[in-house]
């Protein structure tokens, strides 16, 4: 990042939420980089940026789309890079109809399931290859997440027009799609003055190309939206057009918010994934091992995903050891099967409906940290049992005793049957293991001290729970118990508490030869015949040569700037992904200034500052033979080696469920009618028509002015997420002692709020109170001839800890992005009133009064497709199992 010539930060308050990482932005600035910050609120990040653009929350695609339009209309793309490394020249099917030509909906839309059939989005000649059917099923299982480590399937024998003039080539489609995203439209939609926008567009394009690179930074200000994936897609399109991917000082940097949240995705504790982004099997789509593997590797396609059979077999071998053989498909039959959406929000609604018996919370506090806190608490109050493992007595452990619903009478302790086990957990210094930080870097932590009292690590808890379950089931002949009894579960332990050896687990994650026990060095050594066991194939190499590579700590000042000997990054200790793109098609650095990885013709291999993200000895001139598949099908100038065509995708013919190109939709709750399309919000967004859930009305619905203001939430430097690790810590609690709401002087005047006084905010879900901070960090925005007021809240507060306050997340309803099932919790609408909220029964009555005035009927949600938008039925049939 320090090598960037321009840095654009959007959807992130990096200076306050990732302060120590922000030193690299400042380093780049010292070296001459221009820094831009785009955010609804002026923050410390804005204060040190060269330019700050205030934006209406939820309109980032309109602004970024206008940058795409600026690049294309002025032909400022890095043409040589774009031609060679992206799919700009590829011809798309004649059947494709752009959302621009259909009022905001692409071709292939099925109104019954509110999902797309993607046949018409395919490349010309491959219309029947999409295999998508209706994509409602993919939405249910958040299938988009699988593409974190590899691209979606696509045919690679494609028609191209190297002149980029063909009307149906991706370049021209992109140009037409974003033609209406003009500086004037940015002003109308986003409230960003056009001069400000042009300053950004000029700086971004002038500081990208052969000699210069620009970096784009986002965090959950982008992901927590009903169009979150498309936000990031738009950013990626810009970075591809400008040639900023795979190059030093370039890239799209996701600033993740928790110590090992990247690791929690790589080795997922997610319902739809197995380690290394292998999908959990689906009961209908993956009847047997071969069908499952083929759905991952897509036989006949290019790229490293072609070896998926080896990764899959090796995972099952790691799970079930000697019991897993080639003959029994490596115990594939032991895996539980998905039938649809089993995500955390569906789970909570099922808890309310009495379908879930027991719930484990492992260092997580959904009563404060998840959207719609009341639904979370009502769900937990309707379990048979709940296990909370945490350092502190968090709100999710005491909701039955001290929660807001106890005050309103909705939860009565004497009538609440949930049995609660609180088990104290070990802290980060009381156990050893690895975190994976935001750039895929694994770092091993040494243990400093033993945990106090009954506190134990999760490693201890799950190892011993598993041991006990297996003891209790010993001798069982029930088929369902085989998977537990066959499990390899014999980790060495040490110390007075029999703590399992974390390094032994890391060794299994890395993988080993099942006959010799030798740890594998690279995932290319994984085999599909049972001779290797690999817990997470993308992590193979972290225990190469039997050495814990994540524990390497060669001081930074003794290394070059890449610092390859500090920790270990997946895959293969590569610090910059797709770095083959840092060289031109012939393998030469694009420029001396941006030299990173290049082809050394004398040695006959790739070399450079980093581990090359390419087969080491494959020359730039290599062309695959006819009929080649897998890695062998990648040409010497196909840098995006996990993509099915080796190219960066400006246009996504598959893999994204809500459209091949990003399109501006209004958030699920917005006070503004979509100025670009008849379609108001993402037509494929995931909605839950459960009585506890509701959506505030937006135009063109009636009563859209009942909740006239926009609210957004984010972090304070001094607090962490739901507060369990900060409101309990005295120095941090003292620094930020109270829940507050930031409002502009204009809104304060309008509503009658006084600085340091009280306000309460009301949505269809809840009413919360906060102290008022009147500040010009927020400005009213002029949008389409109207004034839009936005307010900001921290989301860290709850009713436990040293400092307490109402929870901002209580205001949100539950509406999700269709690709990854992440909730829209960066924007909602509300009313703002002076003074404190009512308490007890009157609180519920206030919210009910608003619901009545807004015409909200429990469980009845606004239609996915905005009335009046014409939709042609797709005519296709598929497994339309989507329960919306």
């Amino acid at each position, binding site marked *: 990042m320090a090598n960037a010539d321009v840095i654009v930060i959007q959807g992130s308050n990096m200076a306050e939420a990732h302060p120590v990482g922000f030193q690299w932005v400042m380093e780049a600035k010292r070296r001459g980089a221009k820094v831009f910050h785009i955010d609804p609120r002026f923050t410390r990040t804005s204060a040190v940026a060269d330019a700050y653009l205030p934006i209406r929350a939820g309109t980032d695609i309109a602004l970024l789309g206008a940058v795409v339009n600026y690049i294309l209309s002025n032909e400022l793309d890095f043409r040589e890079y774009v031609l060679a490394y992206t799919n700009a020249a590829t011809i798309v099917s004649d059947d494709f109809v752009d959302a621009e030509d259909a009022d905001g909906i692409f071709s292939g839309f099925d109104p019954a399931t509110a999902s797309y059939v993607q046949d018409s989005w395919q490349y010309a000649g491959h219309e029947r290859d999409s295999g998508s059917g209706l994509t409602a099923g993919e939405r249910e299982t958040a299938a988009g997440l699988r593409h974190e480590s590899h691209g979606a399937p696509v045919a690679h024998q494609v028609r191209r027009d190297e002149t980029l003039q063909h009307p149906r080539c991706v370049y021209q489609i992109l140009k037409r799609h974003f033609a209406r995203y003009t500086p004037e439209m940015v002003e109308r939609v986003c409230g960003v003055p056009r001069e400000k926008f042009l300053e950004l567009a000029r700086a971004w394009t002038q500081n990208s190309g052969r000699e210069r690179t620009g970096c784009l930074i986002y965090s959950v200000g982008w992901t927590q939206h009903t169009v979150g994936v498309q936000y990031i897609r738009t950013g990626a399109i810009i970075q591809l057009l400008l040639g900023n991917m795979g190059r030093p000082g370039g890239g799209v940097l996701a600033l993740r918010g928790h110590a090992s949240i990247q690791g929690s995705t790589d080795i997922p504790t997610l319902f739809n994934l197995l380690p290394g982004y292998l999908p959990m099997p689906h009961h209908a789509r993956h009847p047997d091992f071969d069908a499952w593997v083929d759905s991952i590797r897509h036989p006949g396609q290019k790229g490293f995903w072609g070896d998926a059979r080896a990764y899959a077999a090796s995972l099952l071998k790691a799970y079930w050891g000697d019991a897993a053989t080639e003959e029994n498909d490596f115990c594939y039959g032991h895996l539980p099967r998905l039938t649809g959406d089993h995500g955390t929000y569906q*789970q909570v609604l099922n808890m309310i409906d009495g379908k879930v018996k*027991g719930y484990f919370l*492992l260092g997580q506090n959904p009563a404060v940290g998840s959207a719609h806190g009341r639904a979370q608490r009502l769900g937990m109050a309707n379990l048979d049992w709940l296990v909370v493992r945490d*350092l502190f007595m968090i709100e999710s452990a005491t909701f039955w005793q001290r929660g807001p619903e106890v005050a309103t009478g909705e939860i009565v302790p004497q009538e609440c049957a949930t049995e609660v086990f609180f088990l104290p957990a070990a802290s980060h210094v009381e156990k050893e293991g690895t975190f994976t930080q935001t750039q895929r870097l694994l770092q091993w932590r040494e243990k400093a001290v033993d945990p106090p009292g009954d506190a134990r690590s999760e490693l201890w808890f799950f190892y011993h729970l598993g041991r006990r379950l297996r003891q209790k089931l010993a001798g069982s002949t029930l088929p369902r118990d085989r998977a537990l009894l066959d499990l390899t579960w014999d980790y060495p332990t040490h110390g007075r508490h029999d703590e399992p050896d974390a390094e032994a687990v890391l060794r299994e994650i890395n993988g080993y030869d099942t006959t010799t026990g030798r740890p594998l060095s690279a995932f290319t050594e994984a085999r599909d015949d049972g001779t290797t066991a690999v817990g997470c194939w993308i992590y193979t190499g972290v225990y190469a040569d039997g050495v814990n590579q994540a524990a390497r700590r060669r001081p930074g000042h003794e290394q070059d700037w890449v610092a390859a000997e500090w920790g270990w990054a997946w895959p293969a200790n590569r610090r910059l992904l797709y770095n083959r793109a840092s060289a031109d098609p012939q393998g030469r650095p694009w420029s001396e200034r941006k030299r990173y990885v290049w082809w050394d013709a004398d040695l006959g291999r790739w070399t450079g500052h980093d581990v090359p993200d390419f087969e080491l000895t494959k020359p730039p001139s290599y062309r695959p033979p006819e009929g080649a598949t897998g890695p062998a099908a990648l040409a010497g100038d196909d840098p995006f080696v996990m993509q099915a065509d080796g190219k960066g995708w400006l246009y996504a013919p598959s893999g994204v469920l809500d459209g091949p190109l990003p399109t501006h939709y209004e958030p699920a709750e917005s006070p503004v009618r979509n100025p670009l399309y008849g379609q108001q919000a993402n037509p494929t967004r995931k909605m839950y028509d459960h009585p506890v859930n509701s959506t505030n009305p937006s135009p063109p619905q009636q009563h859209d002015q009942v909740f006239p203001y926009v609210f957004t939430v984010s972090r304070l430097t001094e607090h*962490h997420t739901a507060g369990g690790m900060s409101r309990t810590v005295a120095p941090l609690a003292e620094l930020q002692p109270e829940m507050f709401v930031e409002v502009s002087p204009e809104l304060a005047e309008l509503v009658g709020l006084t600085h340091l006084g009280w306000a309460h905010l009301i949505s269809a879900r809840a009413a919360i109170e906060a102290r008022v901070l009147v500040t010009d960090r927020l400005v009213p925005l002029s949008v389409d001839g109207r004034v839009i007021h936005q307010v900001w809240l921290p989301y860290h507060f709850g009713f436990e800890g040293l400092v307490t306050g109402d929870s901002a997340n209580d205001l949100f309803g539950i509406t999700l992005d269709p690709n990854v099932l992440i909730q829209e919790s960066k924007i909602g609408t509300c009313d703002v009133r002076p003074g404190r909220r009512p308490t007890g029964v009157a609180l519920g009555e206030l919210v009910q009064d608003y619901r009545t005035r807004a015409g909200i009927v429990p469980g009845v949600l606004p239609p996915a497709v905005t009335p009046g938008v014409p939709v042609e039925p797709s005519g296709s049939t598929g497994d339309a199992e989507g329960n919306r």
Partner: protein
Amino acid sequence: MGLRDRLLGWPVYRQLTGTDPLGRGAAARSPRSAALTPRTEDADRVARSVCPYCAVGCGQRVFVTDGQVTQIEGDPDSPISRGRLCPKGTASRSLITSPLRQTTVRYRRPYGTEWEDLDLDTALDMIADRVLAAREQTWEDVDAEGRPLNRTLGIASLGGATLDNEENYLIKKLFTAMGALQIENQARI
């Protein structure tokens, strides 16, 4: 003691004549302060760790004396953080030594109005029994068409993202083997 020594013993003189005109360093020293040592100096050991808050991954040095964590500082060797920590990272010693930390098992029985104590071993055993019971009550062998399901929807889990990779690995492995697939994480949120 000569005049020169007495003058040098006077902080104001050192401040006016020495290299520390603001009186915040050498000029302000006294024999007592000169003899002070940081509590990190006599630490029994130093563990190399990583900050548990955001995902930047700042290096930490954890100083331990007599089995107690006495200080947590930024690790200057880290090429990521170069020795720096933010207010949260700096406060992480207070996180692990907070008087609010729970160190014993607590149990709330159904319809109970107060917490009770419970032995850790008993708690683990009770949880194991409840897992098996929930599995038994909600087990699904096959779907309506006879296709395998091998699962229970009666158990759910939601983890934070301060879990180690090794922990997540065992969590997913065990839950998958028991047929519990409703396993989620902060990473979804």
